[in-house]
């Protein structure tokens, strides 16, 4: 039985410490949570993501107070009630819309940072896996949220994406109906995507964020050179005051001070978009109310799904679905497909360097082609880029197993 001081004042430091071990918590989670010193601003993307998630959550709570999940009123509750009757409703909506788009930009930067520096290997596999699960749940969150304004793009994107579950020649139409709760997107559909967006997905995301942080604690954050050093030794030096010699810094306040500075720059960019350039995040087609009788000329997902959409599109239905499924899971396997023991920036890893930049460029090309109408040269380029994507992933284990040990 622990010792409790009878005389400690309720909620005093001592009282709390005896019950919650706040000193230990503080030490373990912040003041003696050691981060390598050899890092750059890309290491702040995690906190930038946490901040963006916070903005989405807060703005979402305000929007939730006025949004109506009903096929007859959803569109006007968003575009009229929130935009013109609710004080600053437009601000919350634009923060939410811009946030939903920008959060994916930062996720991709965060992901490619991890790939570039090899931060998914040597004890860091679970960091990568939990991160990829977050990517998948954020995708589900973004898609379900996109249904809610019940505009033309909500309706038709909902139609197209749920159709994928019929599995092409499998004709699992029953599954599609089960997902929709109807033959076509309607009230049941809107209601369940509303539930997914405001309850189930956020719950899973919050759980995964905790897991993602947890997976970081033991293997520690990677550094710019992938250097493997003794954290305890480095921490000892730091605590002795040899901060110049030590290779680490405490999370609070040293690492945090840089995070907050990077966040400041990010917020300038973010709110510039919110006030002066929000159109990119709110597709014009979705400002026409959902109309089951009128298919829009061009149906395309938001920009962050375009690369995987373009992996689906250039192929016939069945191979396309297989390719699409492949693209959805292949990133999860990265720590196991990379056969090299080296944890180092791509620039020092021979062929992997070219693999990295080729993957990045290929995904950007896929993204461009995913939005363009699938005609003429565009569909040829799309097909080549999709095939190249597969070639890259097939080549990965081969080129990494031949990589020289550093």
């Amino acid at each position: 039985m622990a010792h409790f001081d009878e005389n400690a004042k309720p909620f005093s430091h001592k009282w709390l410490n005896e019950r919650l071990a706040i000193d230990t918590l503080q030490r373990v989670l912040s003041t003696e949570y050691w981060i390598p010193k050899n890092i750059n601003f890309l290491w702040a993307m995690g906190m930038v993501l946490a901040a963006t998630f916070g903005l989405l959550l807060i703005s979402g709570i305000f929007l939730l107070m006025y949004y109506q999940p009903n096929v007859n009123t959803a569109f006007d509750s968003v575009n009229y009630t929130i935009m013109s009757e609710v004080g600053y409703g437009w601000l919350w909506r634009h923060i939410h819309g811009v946030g939903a788009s920008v959060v994916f930009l930062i996720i991709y930067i965060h992901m490619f940072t991890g790939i570039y520096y090899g931060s998914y290997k040597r004890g860091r596999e679970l960091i990568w896996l939990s991160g990829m699960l977050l990517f998948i749940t954020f995708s589900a969150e973004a898609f379900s949220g996109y249904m809610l304004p019940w505009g033309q793009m909500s309706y038709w994107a909902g139609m197209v994406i749920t159709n994928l579950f019929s599995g092409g020649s499998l004709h699992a139409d029953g599954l599609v109906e089960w997902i929709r709760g109807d033959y076509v997107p309607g009230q049941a559909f809107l209601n369940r995507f509303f539930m997914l967006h405001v309850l189930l997905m956020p719950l899973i995301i919050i759980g995964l964020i905790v897991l993602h942080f947890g997976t970081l604690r033991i293997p520690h954050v990677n550094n710019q050179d992938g250097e493997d050093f003794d954290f305890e030794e480095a921490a000892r030096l730091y605590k002795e005051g040899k901060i110049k010699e030590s290779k680490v810094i405490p999370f609070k306040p040293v690492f945090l001070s840089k995070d907050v500075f990077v966040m400041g720059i990010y917020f300038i960019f973010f709110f510039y978009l919110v006030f002066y350039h929000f159109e990119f995040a709110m597709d014009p087609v979705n400002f026409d109310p959902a109309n089951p009788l009128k298919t829009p000329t061009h149906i395309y997902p938001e920009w962050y799904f375009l690369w995987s959409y373009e992996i689906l599109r250039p192929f016939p239905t069945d191979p396309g679905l297989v390719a699409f499924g492949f693209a959805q899971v292949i990133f999860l396997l990265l720590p196991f497909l990379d056969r090299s023991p080296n944890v180092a920036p791509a620039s020092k890893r021979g062929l992997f360097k070219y693999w990295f930049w080729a993957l990045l460029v290929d995904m950007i090309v896929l993204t461009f082609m995913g939005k363009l109408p699938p005609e003429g040269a565009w569909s040829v380029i799309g097909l080549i880029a999709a095939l190249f994507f597969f070639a890259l992933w097939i080549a990965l284990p081969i080129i990494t197993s031949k990589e020289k040990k550093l």
Partner: protein
Amino acid sequence: MKELKIFGIVVAFTLVLYWGVEPFAHSQMHKHVEGDNLQYSDLKPLKVKGDAKAGEAKAAACVGCHSIKVKNMPAPMDAMASSAAYGVNPPDLSLAGALLDEKFFAHFLMDPAGVTKSKHFAMPPSAFSEQDAADIVAYFKSIAPKEVTAKDAFTFACSRCHADRYDHMTQLGEEPKTKANIKTNVDLDKLDFEKNLGTYQNKLADYMGKLPPDLSIIIRARSEHFLHTFIENPQSQLPGTAMPRVGLNKEGMEKVMAYLEKTGDPSKPLREQTGPKVLLFFLVFTALAFLWKKSMWKGHH
């Protein structure tokens, strides 16, 4: 320095990505239509000068269908009867001289269906010489009020076919304020109005081929360039559309666009007012964060 280089690479890739999915993709998806600057260049310049006095007598025939409220001349039929007869309610002509392009207006009077480029147009040719047309135009210019509000412009040019529900505008004008019976919660006046509106809309849909869309937030659903060129010449953007060319002049176009912006993007003034303050806050925030970071990292390298 190395950090700035990395930042530069991230920014460059982000910009390329943005360029590809926004400006480039949209330039490929939508054909570009060059506007005509409201010149209506396909119509020949008028060779004659109009005389408002002479026009007054010639315009007398107009009130066979239209009202001219500035002159206290009512229409012979109300909106319901008109729509039953013609498919659509003819506009009040008080503002015609102020909002329509002079050349367009004159040619329109001589050949309404041809000039509006709509397959069928309820109005028959109403001037039989260029002189007649110019005189009638001169007359309407002389009676038009000096000041026209944005809403009046919308009412004249658009609202007999298009509703704007976010401004409570219907094809039969503003939604009336009615009261429900307190004991039954039945609002008979509202039901009557809705029945009339429904009847009108059905007739209109028969006349136009479909019910023309509500324009509440059309300003966000279409680009400003699209709306300009579409209103100027609907066939240029949507070949085969039933929407007639309405022949607005510069003032008319500006007023209609101002109205659409007001109902479709009402937060614009407040947004422009709040934006600089929020950005200033984050500039100061970032400057302070930079100083904090500098002091925290002192002696670390």
